[in-house]
């Protein structure tokens, strides 16, 4: 029997010929990413070294990336102090892949990593963020870990005691219809297999609909793979991966790529024909409470959010700008737009998307996680409803347990901004 994509990566990262699901391994890490929670990682890292007589020193400063994104600019003195502590540590340990709150380098970690060329196919990437699954879009085995586990990685350069996960093969056939986007595909899949359908497993994506999908779209589906419980999502690298790495991420030199073996053993196979797919909406308060937009009913919205590590990329802003250009968002609706990075912000500025959005009535915010995790920049009032292109709608997620969050694609979000109700973009606004 052959190996899945992740088994092959783990075999390489452990110097073995073959590994199989269930085996316990300690893979070498190629990239270890943190954001503001690096403050906790630093605390735990120093704790590891306590009373050892050894000087705390990270295993390889070039393999550590820290991106400030969750609460930027700082919403409180506490966060500002944590961010200061991180800057001091970064300087002391000589960590170069550090992205501070700056218009020439900042943004959301899950956009900064790919666009900076930090992620390469076939490598092991870990991050202290559950949406680290995103980087499977470039063919890496990329997964979320906690802060203490990251402290262990910073110390030893390996993830300790990893059980090789079994893999679910997802085959996407057909072609996406007009205004049906990768977000609709991943919401549909989560609804189909449930929020724990891939717990402790990997989702490996195949099929013509994936082959024709841009890296941006692949980042969306790998990003939300964790919402089905998956350890990681992964797309076997192909011509599009190489194009993205060379043209958009500035990677120079030869990039080695490999796919899974043709006789790899899968836990199960799920097939989806995307030609039949309608725009999807995840209703409160669970990500797997997914319905086609036409079956959601008449839902009035108070706040529309376009952005996040899921849908804040250039093509997401482009589709929203196309729908909103020359029109006005409905009275009583506030619309917040968070480009995923300052590079995207600048591109969208140049292409006129930001002007189209602002003229329609949207507020363009600084790149970052924004209101997605409910700390700042757009909390909801009691009884309010948000329609958002982000990735989670758990109770309390946007800062208020007495509010509701619906999740959708940027096309549904923009069309709904025009009407003030959850709207099918194929039917248009008013």
């Amino acid at each position, binding site marked *: 029997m052959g190996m899945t994509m992740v088994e092959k990566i783990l075999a390489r990262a452990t110097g073995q010929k073959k590994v199989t699901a269930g085996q316990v391994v300690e893979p070498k890490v190629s990239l270890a990413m943190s954001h503001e929670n690096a403050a906790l990682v630093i*605390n735990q890292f120093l704790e590891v070294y306590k009373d050892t007589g050894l000087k705390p020193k990270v295993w390889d400063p070039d393999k550590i990336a820290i991106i400030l994104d*969750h609460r930027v600019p700082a919403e409180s003195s506490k966060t500002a102090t944590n961010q200061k502590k991180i800057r001091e540590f970064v300087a002391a340990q000589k960590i170069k892949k550090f992205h501070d709150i700056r218009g020439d380098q900042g943004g959301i970690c899950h956009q900064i990593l790919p666009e900076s060329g930090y992620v390469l196919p076939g490598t092991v990437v870990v991050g202290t*963020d559950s949406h680290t699954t995103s980087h499977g879009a470039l063919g890496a085995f990329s997964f979320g870990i*906690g802060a*203490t586990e990251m402290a262990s990685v910073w110390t030893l350069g390996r993830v*300790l005691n990893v*059980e090789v996960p079994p893999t679910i093969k997802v085959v996407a056939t057909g072609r996406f219809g007009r205004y049906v986007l990768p977000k609709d595909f991943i919401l549909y899949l989560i609804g189909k297999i449930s929020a724990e359908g891939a717990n402790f497993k990997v989702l490996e994506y195949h099929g013509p609909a994936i082959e024709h999908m841009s890296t941006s779209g692949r980042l969306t589906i790998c990003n939300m793979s964790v919402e089905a419980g998956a350890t990681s999502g992964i797309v076997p690298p192909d011509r599009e991966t190489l194009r993205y790495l060379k043209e958009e991420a500035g990677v120079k030199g030869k990039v080695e790529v490999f796919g899974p073996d043709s006789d790899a053993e899968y836990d199960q196979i799920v097939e989806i024909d995307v030609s039949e797919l309608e725009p999807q909406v995840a209703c409160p308060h669970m990500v797997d409470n997914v319905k086609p937009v036409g079956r959601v009913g008449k839902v009035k919205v108070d706040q529309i959010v376009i952005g996040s590590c899921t849908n804040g990329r250039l093509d997401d802003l482009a589709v929203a700008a196309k729908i909103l250009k020359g029109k006005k968002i409905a009275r009583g609706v506030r619309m917040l737009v968070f480009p995923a990075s300052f590079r995207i912000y600048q591109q969208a500025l140049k292409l006129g998307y930001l002007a189209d959005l602002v003229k329609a009535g949207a507020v363009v915010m600084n790149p970052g996680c924004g209101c997605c995790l*409910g700390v700042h920049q757009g909390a909801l009032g009691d009884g309010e409803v948000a329609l958002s292109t982000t990735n*989670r709608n758990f109770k309390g997620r946007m800062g208020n347990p007495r509010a509701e969050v619906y999740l959708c694609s940027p096309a549904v979000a923009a069309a709904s901004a025009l009407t003030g109700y959850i709207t099918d973009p194929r039917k248009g606004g008013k």
Partner: protein
Amino acid sequence: MARVVLKLGDDISTDIIYPGRFMATVLPTETPQYAFADFPEFNAQLKKGEIPAGSIVVAGKNFGCGSSREQAASTLKGHELVIVAKNFARIFLQNAINLGLRLVVCPEIEAEEGDELEILPDKIINRTSGKEFRVEPLPKARQAIIDAGGLIPYTRQRLLEKAASRKKV
């Protein structure tokens, strides 16, 4: 034997265990005050010290889904709660083991608030209802960490071994 102090359903997310708005608080010594902050009554009982260490929270499937925030594990560890659930989301389970928070995987658990449970290595006996439920072992990959008392002492041990082997060479 210990008492069930809170009964929850399926898919309890880290946003319910430790809401995102408190994420600027990171230290395990400070996170316990925000445990289940959106359940004000239970949170108040925890803060007043009315819930004895070892008390049990019973939940359904996919407990701890969502964010990788370690605060969700440290906040519960701070009160020495024991979590019995039908199953756990991956990152939460690992964080809990890394910090020494006690989790019990019990796929068929039936218990109500106020019930007294006896937790044995292979089963849980609900002393109130008289019913027994099998317990599933935690992932075998994590046993070494549990045995070492958490990931910090385990990593420290590995670091010292590495440093010693370097000296020999």
